[in-house]
């Protein structure tokens, strides 16, 4: 019998694979800006897949879709920026 995958199945499999790769990175990779960048992209991509296909916001109300998607642009970007500018952030938040 031929197995047919729909977008939900594909999304689920992609998310599992990315999670396993993340776990592999956690166990093996040394801290590096390249690793941080890859992880940030993986967060953004996972978030987008869940928002578009599990939450079904792909074609839904524009405001909600934009707000939800922007959350997964802003936070991966903040993770990257706070890694790059950690000393400046520490100085900025020292009273």
């Amino acid at each position, binding site marked *: 019998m031929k197995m047919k995958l729909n977008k*939900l199945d594909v999304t689920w499999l992609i998310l599992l694979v990315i*999670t396993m790769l993340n776990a592999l990175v956690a166990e093996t990779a040394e801290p590096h800006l390249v690793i941080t960048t890859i992880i940030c992209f993986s967060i953004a991509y996972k978030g987008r897949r869940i928002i578009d296909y599990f*939450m079904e916001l792909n074609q839904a109300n524009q405001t909600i879709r934009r707000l939800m998607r922007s959350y997964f642009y802003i936070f991966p970007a903040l993770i990257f920026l706070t890694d790059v500018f950690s000393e400046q952030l520490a100085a900025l938040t020292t009273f």
Partner: protein
Amino acid sequence: MNQVASNTFYINGSGSVTTEPETIKKIPGNKAVWVAIFAELSEFAVFFIAYFIAKAHSPIEFEQGPLQLNTLAGTLNTFALITSSYFVAKALAAIRLNEPDRSIRYLSFAVFCGACYLVVKYWEYHWNVDHGIHANTNSFFSMYYYMTFNHLIHVTWASCSLLWAISQIKVGNYTQERHIGLTAIACYWHMVDLAWVIIFPLLYVLR
């Protein structure tokens, strides 16, 4: 047969999203649940910002912290939440196809995944204590317990809402024609999953 039932449904990937009568240019579920979702995401946003600041002030602790955590537990919990979200989406697709029994089955699988998450988290917290990891060990572990315990509470009550959805399908309150409540619960559950999508790499992966 009413208008909704006679349309071609977008069954989460089996068809075209442009024929989905429920979500196209509309608010999935209801406005109230989206107020709750954005409130919860704002709460998690505050946690994430606190994490960034704490990490900037204690880089050594945040570099060594993830190495001491149980990555297997974090990964298993990620699997559990992603899989539960998948089942919730399948349950919504099933109710649209007027298959309430299949919808209940998928929701039950989702609840089981939620329960697995709680069991793994319980094991992980015990494992932490056995390895001398406590909330006051250092600022990384304070953030870890603050974020994960808060998330655990969300998983707990979201699981309860899934059980509520199952009961509503059983008594016939959620049907093919009327299941806004189920859609709202599904969106909330996906939000809980989304929060973990950021928490997992922050605590277990990034150093």
